[in-house]
């Protein structure tokens, strides 16, 4: 069974957001990593880049396909997960911790409230698969 931690927010593009005070980490969900298969490359922005909510900030490539990554909120990149350069498979093996991708400043808390909860995301995923 796919795993969706309760303390995260989710998007319909299959990213998760972990808010810690004024910043938030972003990654892709267990459902997304499983659908992609073996992740072999993650293309990330550089610290200092800013993204509006819903804009592409990078991409994740599996053997079979490539998917764009969309920013769940507006903000400036304050950190990227350097470990993914050498170990992109962390996205598969540990999507919610070791597989995090970027850390953003939170500019508009209202955007967070509009994201999906774990149970809402789980219901959404159910409509996406057979």
């Amino acid at each position, binding site marked *: 069974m796919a795993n969706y931690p309760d303390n995260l927010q989710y998007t319909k593009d299959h990213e998760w957001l972990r808010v810690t005070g004024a910043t938030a980490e972003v990654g892709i969900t267990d459902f997304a990593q499983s659908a992609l*298969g*073996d992740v*072999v*490359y993650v*293309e990330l922005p550089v610290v200092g880049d800013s993204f509006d909510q819903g804009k592409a900030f990078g*991409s994740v*490539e*599996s*053997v*079979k*396909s*490539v998917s764009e990554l969309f920013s769940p909120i507006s903000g400036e990149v304050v950190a990227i997960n350097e470990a993914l350069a050498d170990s992109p498979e962390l996205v598969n093996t540990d999507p919610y911790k070791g597989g995090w991708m970027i850390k953003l400043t939170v500019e508009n808390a209202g955007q967070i409230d509009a994201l999906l909860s774990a149970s809402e995301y789980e219901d959404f995923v159910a409509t996406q698969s057979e």
Partner: protein
Amino acid sequence: MAENPLKQTALNAAHRRLGGKMVSYGGWDMPVTYAGTIDEHMAVRTAAGLFDVSHMGEVEVHGPQALQLVQHLTTNDASKLHIGQAHYSGLLYPNGGFVDDLLVHKLSDEHYLLCINASNTDKDFAWIRQHATGFDAEAVNTSPNYTQLALQGPQALTMLQPLVDVELSTIKYYWFTHGKVAGVPALIARTGYTGEDGFELYFDPNKSERVWNKLLEAGQSYGIQPCGLAARNTLRLEAKMALYGNDIDDTTTPLEADLAWIVKLQKGDFIGRDVLVKQKEAGLTRKLIGFEMLDRGIAREHYPIWIGDAQVSQVSSGSPAPFLKKNIGLAYLPLEHTAVGTRFDVEIRGKRTTAQVVETPFYKRAK
């Protein structure tokens, strides 16, 4: 408009039990992977992998003029085949483009088995039937009569031997024999689409699960893995085997596709021959080459290819190569840019990245 339901092989339930991720492919519901594509790919390169390729089509041609019909339809010289031998060939339109690529097996002097691509089966069969008029030969679509399994990898022979009643080492590469696999009568061909040694088995679909399970059981101690379409694609790309719809289609000729070795102009007339003769005389203007990415990034099919300020073509196949640990691909380039070492750009999501023409096949097994 109602969509056609996806076709299922006799092993559909077995794939689902094994946790296969099912996808739509050429009208079929097929496993793209089970546990993971990289593991499956590596299993084939280092041990053994088992593929259900029952979606592939089979057409049998028989009759007094079966050879003449096969010769008329295909580019390779089937008159050179012995009974029990197979070869790779092309089925062409009059313009020299591919209807399909295929394997031709000679079952007897008047009986040939053609193995064709799943998504092309109906098109090919109609084409073959249409061109069979005037020949004392008949073509029959026997696809439903066969389950086809591909057992590939350096351990394939060793693990398969105890399950069969024939001496596998006596079957030469691209030859086949009839025997029993796990007690089931089968055509056992030493062919495949991965660049490894291995066997393709054709047998009664009613016996599918029995044979599939026996093979997985027998291969367990050798590290066998069931493999999906994704590993089949990365393996065939490392071995530089063409994929219909990507690397070859009705707009590309075998000469352009670097498949001159399946074109036997001296054998006499065949459909598409005139165009190939002219193309050979005039010289090619483009050719399929293999490339390796020098910059980070993975080239994928349809990504634009640039030389200087001109977009000259697009990637026909591209992927990470799990065994070689490089990002590789195939593309048609203008002939003057096809020398090994030539650099060009692949546009990856708006960014130009450098690639280089390399020797192919990318991977060649040690003999």
